[in-house]
């Protein structure tokens, strides 16, 4: 590209075509004030403060929207420019309230800053106040439109970043303002309270509600959101060891200027009065606060006793998909090196083990194969079994941006109508549990029509011939019969997917939490390989429910795999770790999460150490889980709160929150991100990694770490995936596990289409009808899933005052035809009964579900829906089926 040279304030500067005057000025260190410009948004030239003078014509140009042209002579500070800017500021101030003293925006106000920079104090115009505000009852956002300068940043953030369409301009002239549809309050609109508008508003027009501190904070720390697996950067503002505000991290590659409601407002669980502030020991059925020494001594002696009397495999540990990489690493070292057992697993078993197994056995790489940015550049995006805008909002934003602004065709496969449905090019609604047949059907269309990427298949994969023969029965007619999706739609979807140069697949719990989860993941991987969408562009995007589900697995909090997915059956790998830790290591496979429960019931497991996980709510069949845990000789639970599981423990160790510790999380993409300490631990709580190290000490097997840095050094040394990633470099940005070219082939992410093992392997998988479909006496199918306002089992989000105020209780979504059939009115309290258990909830009518299907959200501790599920495991990944079950309804009473 040819450079363009212009004269800027008398100095010649060069830029590239397409740059605006403002871009070039800022790049050249020339400050031009602006209120409506933001690098994340399309410039619109609305505030006109960035006017500059074209010296050749004498015209004033809005520099944010005027492209540079060769030979331009621009004066950014001419008297005319200054005069006009001042007039504009005066105009704004004349219609802005004189409430700066009590405005929470305080020193952050950009209007105030520009006015003061330009020395505009007295306005000299009549005050013409803007019309009053709207009263909001939501606990998140306060709109005071009398302070709105209509820079439209909120509107553009809503349209361009999160693509929600909740707000737009309304009215004309002086009356114009940003508003929801029909100017209704935010809580009655499509607003999801992501907070992107609040973060970007230059004045006090949009502010957080319930601020605990109204001034400007001095301490702002950038860290990673602790909720879902997207891994958004959040910037936390701190005053007196209290987090007062969260904003999207400025440099966040994932968040791109927006969080979701949990990221923006849910951090307040950190300061919940329910936080555990000291270790607890159960004495005669009641907890008593004790010192750390006493608690650790008790845990150490009990674990030791059980190990010595019953053997190491009578102990089992659950790591946490919400704890850092380093903590999970230490926990598995404790299990293997100190306790001598491979009985360690983590909660991602519940939703993402099929990805590890399924992708590992096909593409040979455990996890998402490309970056979020690559997803957004895709021409076709197939979203299957994932309600992105609830369960992975940042991924949802990216997909919506791709569909709305980048011409991507969205192929949505979901029986439920979701927020993405209106963005879909094609929307298929297969019957519950039939995705595998649909995906195989697509593959068959591609094979029979010759739409496959032959070169890719020939050169980079094997077993194609065997696999493709196994597809024969998946004719469009058969697929239609099984899934209910019209055969023509299967063909169209397959063609669109195959004909795109860059096609991506995004999937979530809707795939992995069925009994056929692993097989369906394999089918998806086959489809991606068939069309050459692994490694180069496009890719497979496996969502993660928790902030560090992938990292916990990477770190070997798994019964069969050592850190870096090295098999415990591999003597070489065992030797490496045994040598490094100077101890013997067990080489027999350990128990997966649900197997631990079975073994506890059977009396084979006697002691458990559960870190940051709440199996009573997160595992299926609550009564069985409770029975198993109470039958243990000794249970120690390490958590921030006295969860339903912790209540059953003999010892509870108070853990610090994400904001109180250092470490790293690895998000669903495989991006390793630094978690930074924002505040001191609450009460006597300690970061999980410190507790584990101290516990090892107490057991007489001290771990040789005096700092977290040493733990990281060891990880970098022993986990090939984390080598050469910048993992140790405190300044490194944009780190990806297995990303760099110099990393050893076996451990790096697919690079330039090369599979880690040389070839991707097609694996035949067959559709079998599953039990979860309706059966006698239980005529309805209940789907469960994430909701935007909560996370996981709700142990954190239900303790967030704002989230729980807005979304206080569970509900049962039901279509009106089904409700009529069962005599249920909206608002009735209903008992939902499965062969295994029952819960009650209030009925809420919806039109997003097909007939015969119900929906209930996870994450409400008072409505533990997992007790509806019996224990049935995916045979390969050992993941329990938790997505759908057959139920019947019983009306209890009308509400109120």
């Amino acid at each position, binding site marked *: 590209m040819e450079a363009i040279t212009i004269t800027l304030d008398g100095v010649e500067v060069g830029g590239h075509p397409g740059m605006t005057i403002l871009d070039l000025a800022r790049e050249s260190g020339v400050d031009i004030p602006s209120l409506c410009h933001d690098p994340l948004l399309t410039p619109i030239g609305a505030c*006109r403060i960035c006017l500059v003078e074209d010296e050749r014509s004498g015209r004033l140009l809005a520099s944010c929207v005027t492209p540079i042209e060769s030979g331009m002579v621009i004066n950014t500070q001419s008297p005319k420019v200054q005069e006009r800017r001042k*007039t504009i500021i005066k105009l704004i101030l004349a219609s802005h309230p004189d409430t700066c003293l009590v405005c929470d925006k305080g020193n952050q106000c950009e209007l105030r800053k520009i006015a003061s920079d330009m020395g505009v104090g007295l306005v000299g115009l009549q005050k013409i106040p803007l019309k009053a505000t709207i009263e909001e009852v939501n606990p998140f956002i306060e709109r005071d439109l009398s302070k709105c300068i*209509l820079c439209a940043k909120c509107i553009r953030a809503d349209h361009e970043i999160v693509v929600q369409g909740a707000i737009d301009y309304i009215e004309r002239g002086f009356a114009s303002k940003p508003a929801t549809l029909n100017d209704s309050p935010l809580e009655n609109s499509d607003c999801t309270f992501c907070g992107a508008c609040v973060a970007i508003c230059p004045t006090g027009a949009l502010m957080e509600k319930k601020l605990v501190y109204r001034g400007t904070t001095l301490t702002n720390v950038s860290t990673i959101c602790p909720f879902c697996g997207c891994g958004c950067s959040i910037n936390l503002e701190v005053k007196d060891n209290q987090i007062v505000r969260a904003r999207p991290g400025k440099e966040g590659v994932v968040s791109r200027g927006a969080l979701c409601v949990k990221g923006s407002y849910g951090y307040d669980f950190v300061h919940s009065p329910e936080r555990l502030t000291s270790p607890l020991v159960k004495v005669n059925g009641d907890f008593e606060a004790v010192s750390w020494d006493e608690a650790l001594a008790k845990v150490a002696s009990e674990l030791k006793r059980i190990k010595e009397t019953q053997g190491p495999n009578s102990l089992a540990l659950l790591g946490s998909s919400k704890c850092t990489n380093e903590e999970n690493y230490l926990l598995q070292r404790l299990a293997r090196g100190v306790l001598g057992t491979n009985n360690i697993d983590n909660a991602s078993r519940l939703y993402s083990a099929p990805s590890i197994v399924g992708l590992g056995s096909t593409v040979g790489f455990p996890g998402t194969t490309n970056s979020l940015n690559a997803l957004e550049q895709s021409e076709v995006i197939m979203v299957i079994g994932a309600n992105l805008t609830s369960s992975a909002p940042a991924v949802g934003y990216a997909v919506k941006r791709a569909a709305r602004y980048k011409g991507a065709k969205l192929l949505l496969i979901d029986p439920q109508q979701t927020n993405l449905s209106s963005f879909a090019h094609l929307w298929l609604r297969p019957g519950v549990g039939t995705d595998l047949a649909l995906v195989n059907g697509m593959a068959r269309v591609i094979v029979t029509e010759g739409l496959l990427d032959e070169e890719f298949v020939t050169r980079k994969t094997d077993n194609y011939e065997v696999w493709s023969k196994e597809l024969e029965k998946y004719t469009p007619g058969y697929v239609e019969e099984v899934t209910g999706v019209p055969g023509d739609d299967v063909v169209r979807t397959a063609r669109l997917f195959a004909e795109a140069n860059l096609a991506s697949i995004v999937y979530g719990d809707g795939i992995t939490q069925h009994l056929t989860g692993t097989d369906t993941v394999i089918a998806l991987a086959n489809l991606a390989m068939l069309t050459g969408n692994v490694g180069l562009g496009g890719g497979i995007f496996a969502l993660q429910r928790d902030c560090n589900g992938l990292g916990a697995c990477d770190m070997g909090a798994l019964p069969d795999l050592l850190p870096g997915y090295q098999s415990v059956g591999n003597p070489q790998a065992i030797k490496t770790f045994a040598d490094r830790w100077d101890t013997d290591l067990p080489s027999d496979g350990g128990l997966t999460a649900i197997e631990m429960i079975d073994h506890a019931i059977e009396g084979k497991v006697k002691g458990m150490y559960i870190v940051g996980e709440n199996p009573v709510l997160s595992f299926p069949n609550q009564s069985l889980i409770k029975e198993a845990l109470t039958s243990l000789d000794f249970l120690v639970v390490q958590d921030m709160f006295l969860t339903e599981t912790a209540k059953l423990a003999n010892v509870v160790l108070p853990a610090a929150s994400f904001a109180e510790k250092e470490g790293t999380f690895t998000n669903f993409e495989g991006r390793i991100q630094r978690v930074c300490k924002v505040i001191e631990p609450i009460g006597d709580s300690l970061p999980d990694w410190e507790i584990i190290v101290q516990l090892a000490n107490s057991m007489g097997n001290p771990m040789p770490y005096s700092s977290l840095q040493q733990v990281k050094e060891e990880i970098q040394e022993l986990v090939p995936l984390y080598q050469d990633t910048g993992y140790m470099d405190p300044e490194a940005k944009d780190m990806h596990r297995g990303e760099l070219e110099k990393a050893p082939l076996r451990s790096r992410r697919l690079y330039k289409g090369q599979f880690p093992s040389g070839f991707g392997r097609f694996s035949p998988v067959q559709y079998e009808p599953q039990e979860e479909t309706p059966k006698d006496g239980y005529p309805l199918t209940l789907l469960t899933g994430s909701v935007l306002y909560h996370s996981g089992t709700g142990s954190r989000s239900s303790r967030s005052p704002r989230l729980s105020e807005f979304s206080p209780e569970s509900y049962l979504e039901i279509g009106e035809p089904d409700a009529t059939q069962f005599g249920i009115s909206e608002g009735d309290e209903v008992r939902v009964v499965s062969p295994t258990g029952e819960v009650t909830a209030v009925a809420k009518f919806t039109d997003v579900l097909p007939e015969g299907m119900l929906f209930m959200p996870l994450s409400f501790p008072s409505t533990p829906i997992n007790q509806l599920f019996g224990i049935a495991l995916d045979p390969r990944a050992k993941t329990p089926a938790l997505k759908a079950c057959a139920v019947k309804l019983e009306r209890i009473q009308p509400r109120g």
Partner: protein
Amino acid sequence: MGFEKIRTEAMSQRKAMQTSPNARVLIGTGTCGMAAGAGDVLESLESELAKSNIEADIIQVGCIGLCYAEPLIEIIKPGMPSVFYANVTPELMSEIVSDYLIAGNPRADLALGTRGEGTLDGIPQLFDLPVLKSQVRIALRNCGNIDPENIYHYVASGGYEGLRKALKIKRQEVIDEVKRSGLRGRGGAGFPTGVKWQFCHDSPGTTKYIVCNADEGDPGAFMDRALLEGDPHAVLEGMLIGAYALGASEGYIYIRAEYPLAIQRLKVALKQMEECGLLGDNIMDSAFSFHIKIKEGAGAFVCGEETALMASIEGNRGMPRPRPPFPAQAGLWGKPTNINNVETWSNISAILRRGADWYAGYGTEKSRGTKTFSLVGKIMRPGLIEVPMGITLREIIYEIGGGIPEEKAFRAVQTGGPSGGCLPASFLDSPVDYESLAEAGSIIGSGGMVVLDEDTCMVDIARYFLAFTQAESCGKCIPCRWGTKQMLDILEDIVSGNGREGDIDLLIELSEAVKDGSLCALGGTAPNPVLTTIRYFRDEYEAHIFEKRCPALACKSLISYYVIPEKCEGCGICARACPAEAIMGDKRMVHVIDQDRCTKCGTCFEVCPSKFSAIAVVSGEPVTVPLEPVPVGSKA
């Protein structure tokens, strides 16, 4: 159907009409005619004809532009010149039917003028009347002459000849022809049409769009409406020519929903074009294909701005966006787009039919051709006119318009609508062309022309136009949204007697900020009415601010009504008429107006018998009158 066949059919229809023994009655039933009562006249005509058992062909035509003469009918009897009758009522209609159609008396006393060969005693030639003599009808060539809902009428008048010619030459040659004609955009900005076309033509891309901007929104402007109602094909033919020249296969007409009749006429025209092979695929059996959609606007003035218009067509809120990229580079849905206004398109079809040289023969060197204006306000003969560029304001106002009613003095003429300015008498002899009006601080604009007399307060006029633009600002740019509001506030203060020293300077400062600081032409021109009135009528501003006086006696807050004791005869008419019961006094008592109760409605002034003329209106001067009613004739 090939075009030749259509033309043959058109000519034979026309011949049949001309040779028919029946008389033809043309009646203007455009929106303006209907508003003046043409509907009743039409009914009367039909019933009279039926009653008298005569056969006559009634043809409903569009507006010929003589608003002051509506309802207007034209009667063509075989072998006679046609006769126009103005201000026809149902009663007059029945007289005309019996006297002229039946008895053969053309009623010279009622006739306005004749047209065609031959003369009739006592009736002037219509086009010799001052109102029409200096007019040249190019854009409006068929308005009032043909049935706008009959494509054959248009074809018989030479319609689609321009398109036929264009399709025979290269696309670039069409553009060159338009360039040579010197035609400039009639929507207001006056950008050379051919040059604009060239940009779009040269833009890379295979999908291009043509748009007709029919979002006429200036207060008092109705050129486009009349043209679309009276001759839609002239506009559509122009669009086809443009589409061919630029390589577009799809076009939009963006028209305000408040023009239902024009929309109806367009829909009829589009349907007929399709039937005749003049729209759709392979037009006139050529390789050229073109489709037109109508997009109804919801009435936002700013949607006349081309980027806002495009946003509105795309289904978004009509708000202007920065240029570049220009529509010619990235317009509708990001594709090269050419937008011209209704009148421009009508000129195009005429230019292609009759040639660039012919067109360029009218007008001035830089402003070629003709321009339509809606001439309204304090004028004897308001109407829709089309005049060659370069004509003086004086000719328009005094010859065509017949001057100011009631022998009042000319105060100013406002041109260009809310984007234009007010020009005083010193400009009456200035030529009307783009450059001259711009130099004077106004613009030609789309063609609104409002004549103001001595009773008009120039500050109030500025306030009126600013109130319009203020309310119509899309709200995007701060200077336009809040600057116009501040200016309006100041003007409201001034006209209500609360003006302050410094207000004029503040108005100028704000005007400049709004002009320089706005993204689109709405804001860029919104201060023009204020700036021109300050420039030419500063003394009026000063009178309002410093003397609290309205020289035109128009601003209610600054005027007072008084009963002149010497003239009042105590008849009581004013007291009875006063809606505010503000006038005291019994019969034979000199009446007194209670200034606190007076609402300054002016009723007393109007009802006071002219033989007394006892009511005075004053501004800024003291008046001595009795405080209580006193007997007539006594010394107060």
